[in-house]
Every structure is written in structure tokens, then in C-alpha cells.
């Protein structure tokens, strides 16, 4: 499905380039224009600006002919004519400058953009004579919950990394997983290493299971939600450590416990020895006071003894 969309979109792009002077990176002037198979949907977004600037976020899923309309109420000057132009990602779009009339108390400027692939997404701004600006941020649905802390796992164990698209947002077509190998994101293909990786996609959720971990598996992993318009990414870090790491604090604390228990019991023994040498006379108490760690029967054995007064 995505292959035919790509072809179609590049054809339409060509058409629009010749008609609309939109600055794109994928110009292919040698291809003959083809009639579009299905027309793109159209959409309109209008913003009225009363102050100096405004930002509007838009999430797009499918390719669309998007009309962006900016209306500005003007400032104190209220010049009859100002220059308006469009920017994409900070750079001025060529041949988009127009002279805008002050009509019915507002300046109005609009433009139709063809958003068909990932390169067309970005920050589109309409600028009114260097004074007012409305920005439209066009992007594919972003993955909301991103885990900021690394997942810790152990050598020989398996690690599970999940990604989820919010229920409120549209469902992705599929999910891809990538691994950062120092220079670029490399896609993980389960078929290449079926015993090592496992990917389970379930509509909004995806799980990457990495089996038989080694320390080399540590690093950044990216999950990509694939939409017709493009892919959005989210990343998670995986850290693989050996079992020695938690073992060190474990042993430290166990030693501390043993030392404290021994200290308390020894203190008790010395106290009762002091009492004995002070002439209390009854040995019953000493037997009562010295339970060893494994000896559970101290009080049970002494329960039948009567004391002489």
C-alpha cells in the first residue's frame, strides 16, 4: 500500500511544483506528469491572530491538500498594504511574497500546501510584514508516553521494550523497531536473528523482546509508528548489567545485619554474666537469655521450671 502511495505522491508533487512554487527537496523534472489516480483529500485550517504570534499543532495521518489561512487584525499602524509571505522550517518559501490589503479590519493570507510525505511535514509560518506570525506545526501523531529512564536488565535474561500510541490518537499502520549502532538507526529484522529478537505488534502497542542478553545489547532502541504520511519515533535506552552489581549491596547489608544481631546478643550475654557474677544466683535466667540464632526452643524448655523464691 505504501509503495503505490509513494509513486502517486511524487507525481502529484511534480504537478504542484509546476503550479505552486513550493520549495521541496524531491524535485524530479525528468518524469512525465501522470494523471492522479485518486485525488488527495483537502482540508482547511484557519487561524485568527490578535496578538503578535501564535502556534498551532496539527497531526496528520494521510496525505492531504492543506489550505492554511491566516487572518491578522493588525496593530496600531493599520497600514493599508503590507507584505506577507510563507516560511517552512525557518526558511522563506520562494515566490510566496504577496501584497496584502487591509480589508474589513483584517489582513488575510492563505496558501494551499500539498502534504504527501515526511519531507512535507514541518513548521509552516505565515508572516505579516515582520510583525506578526502564525506557525502551523504539521506532524504525524506523536507517541505520548516516552520512558525517560533506562530499562535495566541482566545478562542471560530477556528484556521487553514496549511502545504505545495514545488511545486518543489514530492507530498506526504498523510498527518498526530500530537500533542505534553509533552512527545511524538500523532497523531490526526478526527474520535475520529469530532467536535473538521477537516483535509483537498489536494495533496500538508494540513489544520488542530481546532474548539471551549480552552487554553488547545495551544502547538506544527506537520504535517507529508508521503512518501514510510518515513515521514517528520514540526511543528507550536498554542497559544490560551482570548479577554481580546488585549482589554487592546485598552482601553488604547481610553482613551489616549479622554484625548487628551478633552485637546485640553478645551485649545481652555480657549483661547477664555481669548479673550472675553480682550474685543473683539463678542460672535459669542465663539459659533464658541466650537464644542462639538456630535455637528456637529456649523458652519452651524453660516453661516448666518453677522458681524458688
Amino acid at each position, binding site marked *: 500500500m505504501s509503495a503505490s502511495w509513494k509513486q502517486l505522491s511524487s507525481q502529484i508533487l511534480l504537478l504542484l511544483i509546476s503550479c505552486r512554487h513550493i520549495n521541496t527537496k524531491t524535485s524530479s523534472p525528468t518524469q512525465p506528469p501522470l494523471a492522479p489516480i485518486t485525488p488527495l483529500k483537502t482540508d482547511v485550517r484557519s487561524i485568527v491572530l490578535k496578538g503578535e504570534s501564535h502556534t498551532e499543532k496539527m497531526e496528520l495521518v494521510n496525505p492531504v491538500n492543506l489550505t492554511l489561512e491566516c487572518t491578522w487584525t493588525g496593530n496600531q499602524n493599520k497600514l493599508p498594504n503590507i507584505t506577507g509571505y510563507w516560511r517552512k522550517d525557518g526558511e522563506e518559501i520562494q515566490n510566496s511574497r504577496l501584497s496584502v490589503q487591509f480589508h474589513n479590519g483584517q489582513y488575510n493570507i492563505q496558501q494551499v500546501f500539498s502534504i504527501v510525505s515526511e519531507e512535507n511535514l514541518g513548521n509552516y509560518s505565515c508572516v505579516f510584514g515582520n510583525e506578526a506570525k502564525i506557525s502551523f506545526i504539521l506532524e504525524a501523531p506523536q507517541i505520548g508516553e516516552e520512558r525517560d529512564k533506562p530499562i535495566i536488565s541482566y545478562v542471560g535474561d530477556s528484556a521487553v521494550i514496549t511502545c504505545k500510541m495514545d488511545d486518543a490518537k489514530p492507530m498506526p499502520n504498523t510498527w518498526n523497531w530500530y537500533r542505534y549502532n553509533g552512527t545511524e538507526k538500523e532497523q531490526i529484522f526478526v527474520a535475520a536473528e529469530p532467536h535473538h529478537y521477537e516483535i509483537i505488534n498489536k494495533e496500538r502497542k508494540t*513489544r520488542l523482546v530481546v532474548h539471551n542478553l549480552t552487554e553488547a545489547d545495551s544502547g538506544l532502541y527506537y520504535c517507529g509508528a508508521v503512518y501514510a504520511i510518515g513515521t514517528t519515533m520514540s526511543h528507550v535506552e536498554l542497559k544490560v548489567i551482570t548479577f554481580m*552489581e546488585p549482589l554487592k549491596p*546485598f552482601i553488604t547489608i547481610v553482613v551489616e*545485619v549479622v554484625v*548487628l544481631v551478633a552485637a*546485640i546478643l553478645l551485649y545481652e550475654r555480657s549483661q547477664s554474666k555481669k548479673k550472675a557474677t553480682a550474685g543473683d544466683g539463678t542460672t535459669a*535466667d542465663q539459659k533464658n537469655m541466650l537464644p542462639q*540464632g538456630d535455637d528456637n*526452643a529456649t*523458652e519452651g524448655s524453660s516453661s516448666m521450671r518453677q522458681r524458688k523464691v
Partner: protein
Amino acid sequence: MPPPAATNLGYTPPDGGWGWAVVFGAFISIGFSYAFPKSLTIYFKEIQEYFSVSYSEIAWVSSVMLASMYAGGPISSMLVNRYGSRPVVLVGGIMVCTGMVLASFGTSIIHLYLCVGVIGGFGLAFNLQPALTIIGTYFQAKRPLANGLAMTGSPVVLFTLAPLNQFLFDSFGWRGSFLILGSIVMNCCVAGALMRPVNKRVQPKPTNESPKRNGGGEEAETVNTGAQSADLLNEDSQTASKGQSNVHKLIDISLFKHRGFLIYLAGNVIMFFGFFAPVVFLAPYAKHLGIDEYSAAFLLSIFALVDMFIRPATGFIGNTKWVRPRIQYFFSFAVSYNGVCHLLCPLASGYLGLVVYAVFFGLAFGMLSALLFEVLMDLVGANRFSSAVGLVTIIECGPVLLGPPLSGALVDIFGDYKYMYYACGVFMLVPGIFFFIMHYYNYKKLDEEQRQSVAVEMKTSEETVELKMNQDDKTVDAADG
């Protein structure tokens, strides 16, 4: 001056000295028992993803742990009756440690149920009962204060464990954290080492010359002379005259005929349905009202902080000469106050309203928790407390486990939290009023019995004096004759 409610111990409790070290040990044991299951919930999300199970399956780990802790009560009581507190706590600490270490190597969720849930839960039961029991052996006059201080362990340990668990999780993942938690929980063994069996050689009041017995010793030998009945002033005198069976040494089933115990049990069973649910649902309710996650978590911190300070304060108040003789009314007040608090909660609007509710709820919860076991000791006496608390916990097991899911069901059915709060409020207010009425009646009966036994004692001491005089006369006659 505290009433001689349970001075048939046969010795004078130290009410201080090493007792405070024991309170510290109990503080740690009780703290781990209550806070440990609650603090494990931080790991649930990752464990849930790792084993790919549903949330309710992972929540079962907590439930199994809590259920084992409560169900292990009678076994724990039997062991304490037989061996005393110290060995049981030592074994308990080692058990929880073993459970956690085994769980860190777990390969399935069932593994976790068994290791963390069953072994861990029983280990905690072996910590809770002995800790409560030993306070009764060391304190009499200052017992409410000691109980209040020991029960403060629960919020303090929870407060410490929560960020610690988060840190462990971020550094070591869930497996490493379970391993290290196993070692941290071994500090219960240190607490156990502190629980030196109390020195019963200390001479009691001169009238009592009965031979003393350790542990949950019963007063079978003290019954024979009327002179000793001066100390048997409380309701235990009713059962002391009966012969003590061997089963009695293990666990005291005759408690079920004890009026005060039955009142306590009946009220508590209803009360526990509404006891924990509001704590569990405080944060979700706040989020439901649109409050963000951190502020909702902060509410729980406020609650825990207020709880922490009110427990020793309640213990102190319970110790004063105005409250101690009628401490059951104080407890009834605490239960009713909880109920009123929950009934008024739906009126709280916005974040500030919820903060106010959290403060009042913290007060109520802390008061109730500090008195929960003190009033049981007051009713049945320190000798039978061990068995009593074992029986109470296993019967409370049901409401404790069913309470939160039932409340959750209420929330799901009505889609609104206020019905759950109304239900919890009712579940606490009704037992509160029940306690007030029943204890009024109970105190009247106790005063009556006290008057009666004083009269009996006077009569028997008169008779023994007469008997002695007759014997003297006879010997004089014999010597003469």
C-alpha cells in the same frame, strides 16, 4: 492511675528500660509488615510488561502477600505462645529474605505468587504478631504510648521505602531490586534480636506468690488461693477457674466466649471493609477530579506525614489518666471519626478540599491504627493477647482482601467515586456507634464483676483468717493436751 485490667501477669512489667529498645524493634517489625506489601507496587508495571500479564494478575501478588500475612496470624500466635517472640521474628525475617531472593530469579508470575506472596507473607506474619505481643509483656502503665510509638513504624517505613524502591528500580531493575530488598528486610532479624524475653523474676506485689510461667502462660496455678484473687480482677477470672487444656497452650479458643473479644471482633470485621479502600483510591480519585499525577501523589505524602505524627500523639493521649480507664470510648470515637471523614469527602472540591480531606483522614487513620491493638490488649489482657490477635487477623483476612475490590466495583458500576466514599463512611460509622453502645454496656458489666470479685475476695480472706485462727486454736489445744 490505670486500672488493674490485666495485672494478673504474675510480674511487674518494666514499663521502660530495655522496653524502649523492644519498642524500637517492634517499630521496625510492624513497619515492614505493613509497609512492605504496599511499597512493592512500584515494580508492578515493569513486571507486568515482562511477563505480559494483565494488571489484575500482577495485583494478586500484593493480595496474596496480604492474605498470607493475615492468615499466618494463628500459626504465628501458636509459635509465640510456645517459643516467645524473639525466635519467631528471627525466623520471619529470614523467611521474607528467602522469599524475595527466590523471587528475583523468578521465571513466571506463579513463581512470584509463591515466593513473594506466600513465603513473604508468612514471614511478615511472623514479624507482626510477636512484635505486638512483646509490647504487652514489657509495658503496662505506659502501654498505650508504647503501642502508639510502635505502630508509627508503618508510615515511617513506608515513607522511607517508597523513594528507596524507586531508586533501586532505576538502578537495578526489578530483579536486582528484589534481591536487595531481601537483604533490607533482614533487618527484621535485628529487630528480633532486640526482643529479649522479659525478665519475669522481678517480684510482683507481695500478695502474689504464685510460681511464674513464661510465654503465654496461663494462670492455672494461681487459682488455688483466695489471696491471689486480688489480681484477678478483670474478666479473665471467669475463665481462669476452668482447667487449662493442652490446646490452650497453643491457641486460646476460649476467647470466643469472651465478651470484649467478641465485641471487638464483630466491629472490626465490618470496619475493615471500609478501612483500606480510601487509602488505595485517594490518588485515583484525585486524578479523576483532574488533578495531575504529582499533586495526587503529594496528597498521599501529606496523608502519610500526618499519620506519622498522630500515632505517637494518640498513644500519649491514650495513656493519660482521663482516657486510659475508658480507652474503648476513645477507640470508638476514632472509628466513628473515620466514618464521618469519608462521608464528608465527596463535599471536598478542588485540590485544596482534597488536601484538607487528606489531613483529616491522616488524623483519623493514625488514631485508629495506634489504638487498634492497644484496645485488644486492654480487653483480653496481655496473656491472651497473642492468641487473640492471631484469631482476629485470620478473621479480618476476608474484609481486608474484599474491601478494595468491592470499592473498586462500586466505582466501576456508578462511574463516580462518591458512592464508594459513602459506602466506606457507613462501613466505619456503624461499627463506631456499635462500639460506643457495646462498650458502655461492657464497662458497666466489668464494674459489676469487679465489685463482685472484691466482695468474694473479702469473704474468702475472712474465711482463711478464720480457718487459720481455728488451726492455731487446735494446735494450741494439741500442745496443751
